[in-house]
Structure formats: C-alpha cells, structure tokens
C-alpha cells in the first residue's frame, strides 16, 4: 500500500461524496431554469477524475494543454451555440400537433 494507492482510495471517496451531494441536490427546490446547477457537483467529479486518475500531473506539459483546450472548446461550443436559442423568439404555431 503506497502513497499512490492511498491517493486512488481518496479519489474514490471524494467521488462517492460528490456523487451523494449531487444525488441529494435533486431534491432541492430549484426553479426549472436553475435546475442545471445540479451539474456543479457533477463537473467537480469530472475534474477529480481528470486530475486524480488521468495522468495530467505526471505526463509532459502538452497533456495539460490538451486537457485545458478540450474544456475550453467545449465551452465555446456550448456558449456560442446557446446564443441562438437565448436570443431567438419562437412564434408558437397554434395548430401544430404531435402525430
């Protein structure tokens, strides 16, 4: 049992804790538009896995650069992609029905 293995166990413990937080956050009385905030512990879990388990600290510098780049471009896609629905007005067509 070395330091590395203890670290893995701590990571596991942290993930279970964060998962529990997320699970119980579901019951909090958020309004519909704020409910995506439940993702915050989920995002933290992602970060814990990336930093704790995916060799970002051990590998060459470019590994960290690639990881940051991936997160950044995902953010660009989601943010700039959301610009349209957030600014568009959909005009409801009264007779539209589902088949």
């Amino acid at each position: 049992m070395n330091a590395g293995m203890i670290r893995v166990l701590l990571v596991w413990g942290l993930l279970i804790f964060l998962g529990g937080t997320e699970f119980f956050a579901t019951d909090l009385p958020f309004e519909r538009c704020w409910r995506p905030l439940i993702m915050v512990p989920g995002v933290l879990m992602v970060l814990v896995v990336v930093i704790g388990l995916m060799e970002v600290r051990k590998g060459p510098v470019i590994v960290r650069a690639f990881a940051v780049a991936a997160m950044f471009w995902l953010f660009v896609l989601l943010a700039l992609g959301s610009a349209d629905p957030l600014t568009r007005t959909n005009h409801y067509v009264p007779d539209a029905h589902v088949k």
Partner: protein
Amino acid sequence: MSTTPADSVRISARAAAGSYLTDGVTLRSWLLTTDHKRIALLYLGSITVFFFIGGVAAALVRLNLVVPQGLLGSAESYNRLFTLHGVIMVWFFLVPAVPVTLGNFLVPLMLGARDLAFPRLNLFTWYLFIAGGAITLWALFVGGIDTGWTFYTPLSTMYSKGHVVMAAVGIFISGFASIATGVNFIVSIHRLRAPGLSWYRMPVFLWSIYSVSVLLVLATPVLAITLLLLAAERLFHIGVFDPAIGGDPLLFQHLFWFYSHPAVYIMILPGFGVVSEIIPTFSSKSLFGYKFIVWASISIAVISFFVWGHHMFVAGTSVYSAVLFSILSYLVAVPSAIKVFNWLGTMHKGFIRFDAPMLYALGFIGLFTIGGLTGLWVAALAADVHLTQTFFVVAHFHYIMVGGMVSAFFGGLHFWWPKITGRMYPEMWARIAALVMFIGFNFTFFPQFILGYLGMPRRSFSYLPEFQVLNVFSSAGASILAAAYLLPLAYLTWSLFHGERAPANPWGATGLEWQTASPPPTVNFVETPVVTCGPYAYPPPETVHQRNV
C-alpha cells in the same frame, strides 16, 4: 547573415544507398508501409482520382448551365451532380489534399525526424480514407443524393430519396482519418523536433500544419456526431430536428456549420503554409514578418471556430446572434490580410524568379485576395440578404478554394516534386499550365460574381434567359480550366520516367528537407540534423543581386 543556407545545418552529406522509392518494390511493401513518404504517395494517388471525379461532375454542372432550361433536362440529375461535386471535392480532395500528401511527406523532414510520432496509425488513416471514399462514391453513383453537400434538414432527413445514410457513413469513416492525421501531426511537432529546432525556428509550413491539425482534431468530431444524428433521424425518424415534436431544424445547421466553417479553414490554411515556403525561395529573401505570419495562422485557426453563424444569416436566427457572428467574421479576415501583406513584403526588393511554383503562388495571392474580400461582402448582413444563395457566394468560395487552394496545391506539388520524385518537371509546360489555369479560372468564376449580384440563384438547374451570356462565358472558361488541370497530369507523369534527375536542392531553398537527397532515403537523414539558425536564412538582398547579375 554571412552563412549560406547549407552551412546552417551540420549533417553528414554522405548519400545513403538508394532512396525510399527503391526500398522495397513489392505491392506489399507499399500497401503495408509505415514510411510517411510512401503513405504520402498512396494518398496522392487517391486524392488525384477523387479530384478528377469531382472535376467531371463540375464539368457536367457547367455543361447543364449553358442553356437556360438546363441542358441535362432533369433537375434531379443536376441536384445529384452538384451534390457529388461538393461532397467529393470538400471531403475527399480539399480537406485532405495538402496535409495528407505534402504534410505527410514533409513534416518529419522539416522537423529533422525519421518519421511521424505514430507511423502505423498513419497507414491506418489511409485505409480509413479509402474505405470512406469507396462507400461515399458507391452512394453517389448508385443513385446519388440531391441534398447538396450541406445535407440540410428536413430535406435530408425526411424527403430526399437519395442514399443519404450511405454517404453519411462514408464521410463519417473518412473523418476518423482526418482526426488521426491531426493527432499525429500535433504530437510529432511537439515531440520530434530536431536538436536546435525551437518553435520560432520552424518553417511556416509546419505552423500551418499545426494550425490545421488543431482544427482537424477539434472540429471533425462535431461533424461525426452531426452525421450520426442525421442518419438516426433518417433511419429511425427520431425527430430531434423535427419541429412537429419540438425539435429544431436550426440545430442541425448549427452543428453542421460548427464543423464546416473550421473545415473551410482546414482547406485553406495549408495553402497559406505552402505559399509561405514558395515566396521566400523564389524571392531569395527571408519571409517578412515571420512571427506575424505564425500568429496569424494560429489566430485564424482559433477565430474560425467563432464565425459559423454567418452561414445562417437568413435561416431564422435572431438579429443579435447574426450581428455577433458578422462582427466575428470581419475579425477573422484580419490575420489573412496580414499574411497577404507579409508575402508582398517578402517579395519587395527580393530577387524574383518566375518558376512554375512561384507563378502558382502569385496567382494564389491575387485570387485568394479577391475571394477573401468578397467574403467580407457576404459577411455584411444587409448585403448577405441579397447575395446569399446566389452565385455570388459560389464565386466567393471558389475563388478561395480553387483560385486559392488548388493553385497552392499545384504550386506545392511542383515545388516539392524534385524532392518527392527525384525528377525535375518540364518547366516550360508547367508555366504554361499555371497561366492557362489562371486565365481559365477567372473566365469561369468572375462572371459568377456578376450573375450572383444580378440575382441568379445557386443550385438551380435552370435559370432566367437574361443570364445566359454570362453562363456561357463561365462554362467556356471551365473547359479552359479543365485543360489546365489535365496538363500537369500529363507532364508530371512524363517527368517520372524522363525528367531530369534532381539535385538535393534545385531551388536554392532553406529548410531541412532540402539538406537531404532527392528523393530522400527511408530514414530521411543519415544523421539527425542540428539546427543552428532560423528558417529562411537567405543572404541579404544586396549580396544576392551581386551574386546573380
């Protein structure tokens, strides 16, 4: 600078016995090679085939447009032809062209390395490319698709009677070749540079390949998921793009253009790199503003992700969204303009030689500039309302893709032909072909700007009679352009057997690839080179003039 280019690199100039071309003569040694140079040639043969298939489709499109009612008689056939032309030219010629041929061949050489980081992955990408291409060709020929290369919903998902899913599968598979190639280049450039080759000593071609690879790795997966969703919608009628259940057809366009706008920069960035190598060589002068050109390439790659909405100005997005994308589109033009000025600055007071590669590069500068400027017109919201979906847009992107990128590709092919094949091509024929291409190109596409301005819609097999004269001009120009493309096929093939043997550095260029034999040995360099000075280490213009007059 008192040293000549050859002095700047200390390597043993002992010629190795044989070259990569003679190292194994069986079919198996070619089809199972992991040598990046051979893989580059495998790709070169493949994209040449695709280029001519796409070209035949273009010829038929132009043939149809010589009479207002459409010579081919059928809208269906016309739709299938322009779709074939677009799909093949975009995904199976322009996107791969320079990276997989010149890039695969030159990146290790320019790095001073013996191969790329992942040679077996490199070979695998060629097989993916062939598989994807075969499936797509089969889809296009066994019935074709009529949606245009843009596959907009709901035509592609609900109403088209073509082989949409099959074509999507083929493009999907070839996308993995793009991603893997990009990974290979980025990792190689980070990890395999020769001693002394710092980032700012790399030739601009490597920076361009790096920028392109960023786009290949980050944008292509978005296309992959988009095609998957498209196929699922068509096969299972799931409805994610279907407004009847609350889906959004604009979501398809956002996802499609999020890839396809960076894709057009994937297509042009390597051309910038090629031109940035040719111009200093044939001006015998160092590249003007090296760091500006380098950071312009990186900026173009980054900003290209922010402008996709300009393909959707009339699609129904809000005016606020459109304004945002319009401003960002103006921004992306700035680094391209910086490059053009720097190329001109390189030529200023240089000793200019008009060999064929230089003719292609000069044609590139002029035609790309026109294409780029007309892009600004369509990026203006008010103008775009009138110009969108007309031939103006068609002319705009053909000036960049054909006038720009194809010229650059031919320029690079001629420039590095001695290195790749060990033979010189016939210079006179090459210059004639370059000039004929320039003339034929302008004859074909300049009238289309006017047609678009006058209101002729694109993707329509018939048109109003008042547009006929310009259409006939354009189609006549296309026949000249076709001749210009057939000429190199002929004389380059001829040169393989009868061309003069090329020395290691026929152009007197700088760069590590010119320090090894033409063609290179399999291991590229007998000893790993050590780089001691920057790229483009040409002597100052005054000494060049004294030397050459």
